[in-house]
Every structure is written in structure tokens, then in C-alpha cells.
């Protein structure tokens, strides 16, 4: 009974926030003169209306989930990885080039490309971790800066040495990967690919890792109080290195599955323009770094985007307004929802000063 009450009251705040978010969105919609209910209906349809839209939403959520999982793992161990974008881009370009130039059959290319993508992302993240551990270079800034460097470097690769010269040759992109190395689609004619299954499996594995393994335990404690971990005999540097490596590898994998599962080549800017990394970060924060929660939040955020596309297609609501609605929803949903995370951080900050 008490439990039930507690669950209810913990649900009430996000519900109220959601309601306010929808109200704020409604104001934006009414500006355009579209009936509010119709607009939301279109958003719903665009996100989940039928199998096609549902799978599109899930396809879009795939990189966001993987990025979010990577960021949440770093978070859990106490590190703020703002560099997911660069890690993803390097992973994508590494995967694309490996799939193109690796000799062997399709499946060999596929596996090698996945490995290359994860390694590239992981090493890029490790660079930041190493600079932090060894030279005390603030991870928050370095990861942010490394994004720009990674994107420019990847851009260089497909503008100069590995440029696609087959088609119109007008875009900074790599050649198309041969079909044998593609990640299989889950349904014919739809964009959802095996990467999504991979993402969900990884989310489950991470949950199990955090909850049931020695390493997961040590990681969690390191994030919650590094000094306690050190006192208990946990090797913090090892935990940090492993977590940042994995975090980067997951971001790299996000780029990899986009390349192998949907674009079949590396196209400069195609991963940065949609803001996947920031969306992944939001998913993580909304879910308080819980892997399954991050997955759900990522699908939700992806649904907002595909829903907005549906809204644009079928009403007079211009594209910009749908991004206004998205922002309004996210703003209010973030309210209170993430309270416990914030509280913890604030407290840590405060306590630095007492005794």
C-alpha cells in the first residue's frame, strides 16, 4: 500500500511536467493556426502511427541509445564525457574505411568495421581520459574540444585521400560500402536495422554489468565516492580507463551502425548535423544514467523528432515550430525528473567546503 503510494507520487511530478510541456507546445501550435489536437495526433502518428513510423523512430533512436549508454557509463564512474560526438564521428569514418578497404568476405568486412569503429571511438575517448589522469587536463573541456578536431579530421579524410569519386563526386563522403558488409535490416523496406537490436542488447548487458558484477560494483562506487573506492582497494585509474574506453567505444559503435546500417558510407557532417550527441546526453541525464532508462528516453527523444517530421508533412505547422514544440516538451519533462541527479551533484559541491 505504502509502496504503491510512493510509486504514484513519484510518477506525479513527471506527469505534471509532461502536461505543462504539452501546454507550452500547444501555445506554439496555436500560433500557427493548426488545431492543437490534430497537431498532436500527427506527431503521434509520425512517431508511432504504424509499423513504418514506429520502425523509423526506433532506427533514429539507435545511435542516440548507444551514445546515451556510453555517456551514462562514463557518468556512472564519475566522468563527464562531452566528447561523444567526436568519438562517434571517428568511429564512423574508421568503420567506413575498414569496410571499404578490408580484404575478405562481406561478413569479415562487417565485423572488422565494427571492431574498427569501436576501437577508434574508444581510443579517442581514452586520449581525453589519459590527459585527465596523467596531466590533470579537465575532461569536460578536452572532450568538447576534441569533437571539433575529430570532425575536421574525418572531414579531411573524405575530402582528400578517401573522397568518393564514383558518382557526382560533389559531396565530402566516402565510397559506398559493398552490400555484403551492410548490417541487415529488420523489416524489408524499412530503415530499422540490426544496430537497434545491438543497442538494446548492450543496454541490457550494461544493466546486468552494473547490477551484478564485481566490476560494475567498483565502477558505481568510484562514481559515487572515488575516495571510498580507493580506500576499499579499487584501482581507480583502471576503472576510469576502462569506463572511458568503453564509453568511447559505444559512441564509436553509434557512428558505426549508422554507417553500416543506414548510410552505407561516411558522409561528412551527417552525424553531427542532427545533434545526436547532445540528444544522447539528454537521454542519459533524463534517465539519471540508468541504462534501460536511457534507452527509453532515447526512443522518446527520437519519437519527438520523427513526430515533428510527421507534423510538418501533414499540417501547416512549419518545421521550426516543431522544433519549438520539441524544446518545450523536453524543457518541462526535464523538470524534477532528473532531480535526484542534480541534488547529488549540488551536495557534492557543497560538501567540498564543509569541514
Amino acid at each position, binding site marked *: 500500500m505504502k509502496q504503491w503510494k510512493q510509486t504514484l507520487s513519484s510518477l506525479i511530478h513527471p506527469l505534471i511536467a509532461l502536461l505543462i510541456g504539452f501546454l507550452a507546445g500547444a501555445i506554439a501550435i496555436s500560433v500557427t493556426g493548426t488545431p492543437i489536437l490534430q497537431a498532436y495526433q500527427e506527431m503521434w502518428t509520425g512517431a508511432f502511427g504504424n509499423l513504418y513510423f514506429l520502425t523509423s523512430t526506433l532506427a533514429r533512436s539507435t545511435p542516440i541509445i548507444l551514445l546515451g549508454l556510453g555517456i551514462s557509463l562514463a557518468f556512472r564512474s564519475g566522468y563527464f564525457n562531452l566528447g561523444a560526438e567526436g568519438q562517434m564521428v571517428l568511429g564512423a569514418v574508421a568503420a567506413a574505411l575498414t569496410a571499404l578497404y578490408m580484404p575478405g568476405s562481406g561478413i569479415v568486412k562487417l565485423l572488422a568495421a565494427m571492431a574498427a569503429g569501436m576501437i577508434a571511438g574508444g581510443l579517442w575517448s581514452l586520449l581525453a581520459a589519459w590527459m585527465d589522469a596523467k596531466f590533470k587536463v579537465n575532461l569536460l573541456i*578536452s572532450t568538447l*574540444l576534441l569533437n571539433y578536431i575529430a570532425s575536421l579530421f574525418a572531414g579531411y579524410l573524405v575530402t582528400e585521400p578517401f573522397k568518393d569519386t564514383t558518382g557526382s563526386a560533389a559531396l565530402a563522403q566516402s565510397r559506398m560500402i559493398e552490400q555484403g558488409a551492410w548490417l541487415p535490416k529488420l523489416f524489408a523496406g524499412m530503415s530499422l536495422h540490426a544496430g537497434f537490436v545491438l543497442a538494446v542488447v548492450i543496454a541490457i548487458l550494461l544493466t546486468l554489468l552494473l547490477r551484478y558484477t564485481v566490476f560494475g560494483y567498483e565502477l558505481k562506487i568510484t562514481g559515487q565516492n572515488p575516495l571510498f573506492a580507493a580506500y576499499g582497494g579499487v584501482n581507480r585509474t583502471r576503472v576510469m580507463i576502462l569506463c572511458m574506453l568503453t564509453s568511447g567505444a559505444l559512441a564509436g559503435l553509434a557512428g558505426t551502425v549508422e554507417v553500416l546500417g543506414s548510410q552505407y558510407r561516411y558522409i561528412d557532417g551527417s552525424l553531427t548535423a542532427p545533434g545526436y550527441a547532445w540528444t544522447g546526453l539528454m537521454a542519459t541525464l*533524463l534517465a539519471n544514467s540508468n541504462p534501460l532508462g536511457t534507452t527509453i528516453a532515447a526512443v522518446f527523444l527520437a519519437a519527438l523528432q520523427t513526430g515533428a517530421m510527421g507534423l510538418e508533412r501533414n499540417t501547416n505547422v512549419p518545421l*521550426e515550430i516543431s522544433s*519549438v514544440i520539441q524544446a518545450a516538451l*523536453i*524543457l518541462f519533462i526535464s523538470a524534477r525528473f532528473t532531480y535526484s541527479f542534480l541534488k547529488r551533484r549540488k551536495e557534492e*559541491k*557543497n560538501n567540498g567546503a564543509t*569541514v
Partner: protein
Amino acid sequence: MEQLFDLSLLNSTVRMVTPILLAALGGSLCARVGIFNVALEGLVLVGAFGAILGNALTGNLFLAVLIAIGSVLLFSLLFAYITIHLRANEIVAGVALNFLAAGLTTFLLRTIFSVKGAYYDNEMHGLPAWDLPFLQQIPVLEQLFSGHTPLVWLAYLFVIGLHLFYFKSVAGSRLLAVGENPVAAQSIGLKVRKIQYAAILGCGLFCGLAGAQLSLGQVTMFSEGMTAGRGYIALVAMMLGQSNPVGMLASSLLFGFMDALSIRLQGLSIPTHFTLMLPYVMTVIAMFFFRDKSYLKNTGANSSAR
């Protein structure tokens, strides 16, 4: 070196750095009360739009700048309300605000000016360029510092002003106290929330000026997404400068010089992508020399609360 850095390049640097510097100064107000404000990009964009809107509506530059500030303050108020009152995660709220700013300015551009992409009017006047008379006498400085808008001068004055505010004024001392230990600040009767609100609004003021400088000082127009990542650079400058006004000036200038250098290097046969990387690479390298000390302390910051 002569080849790489001529005075007009440095003159351009002084100007280009201004919006970044202003936004970084604003961001530091938030950072100093313990709020990591990633919405700088969006806030500056709103400021840029507000300035052009104000100019188009009133034809008065002073009012235009005020309107720029006003519109950013409105946005900041939303950010403050959501993070302080609704206790939303500040990063999520910041990212969402960036989306909101991009969408809203584009939408308003379309509804108010009936244009897509950019609003440009040949008749519109930007902020005037001021030459300080005494500087005009000195040969090198004259070139370096000629033709800047009042906001450029103001930005550099604000570095001093903010330094005095933080370290010499009563209000600044209290603001820093809230950031250093909010629980203690609360316990001695400081109005922590009020001070946080004030800091966020102060940040809005700076971002408004940054936006106005961008759309009325640097150029006289508004175009979609014209901030082009300056808000994020400001964030880096703020962190690298450890929220210290002089430090932020130094890191903004570092970034600006490297950017200028990269423009010069474009003339040589280095691939553009690498020259464009230069400011970021140099900033990373700079971090090896300017480590964030407050950040180091944080690892030990887990002592008891009761």
C-alpha cells in the same frame, strides 16, 4: 611572422573575439553560482535576433540593443525558472533552450520579416565605429583599435568591471559565496535562489550584448544560426579561463589569435581542415599549462554533510 600577423588581422581578431568574450563573461556568472550554462549559444542567437528586430522596429540603435538584452533576459528567465524552481537538470534545459532558440528565431524571421534564411536590409545601419581620440595618435594602436563599435570597447571594459565586481564588491562577494558553498550561504541568511536568478539574468544581459555585437556590430543582418558555434567556444573560453574575467579574456584572445593564424595558414598549402583545427588543438595544448585547480579539488569534495 610579419607575413602571418599584420595589423589588420589583429584588428579583426579584437573584433571577432568580442561576442565570444561577452558570452564567456556571462557564462562565468552562472558558473560562479554553480550552474553550468550550456545555453550560451542559444542565448546569443536570441540576442542577435532581438537586436535586428529592435533595429527594424524602432530604427534606434540604442533601443535595438535594449531590445536584444530584453529578449535574452526573457529567455534567461525561462532557464532560471526551469532549473531553479522546477529543478530541471541544467544541461538538459540548456540543450533544449538551444533548440528552442534556433527554432524560434527562424520562425519569427519568417513571420515577422517574411523571409527565410536571412534578414538583410541595405538601409539598416549597424552600430557606429568609434575611434578613441587619444589612441589615434599612436601609430600601431591606432591601426589595432580603430573602427570598433562601442560594444567592443564595452566588452573589454566589462572584463575589468566584472573583475571588480567579483573580487571587490559586496554583491560579487556574496555571489561567489553562493557558488562556493550554497548550504553555508543559505545558513547565514543569503537568498541563494535570488542570487542564482540574478546571476542567470546577468548572464542574459551579457549574451544579449554579445548577440547585438554579432548582428549589429560585426555585420548588420540576422541569419539563421549565425552564432555558428560561438556559444560553445565561449563555454570553452569560460572553463579554460576558470571563470576568472582576466583568464577568460586571455583564453578568448588565445582562441582568437589562433583563429586568425589559421586564416593566414589557409593561404599556404596545408589542407584547410588542418588549419581550421589549429585553434582547437592549441586550446588543448594550452590546457596542459593552465590546469583548472578548482576542478582538481573536487575529487576530495565528498566529506560529510552532517
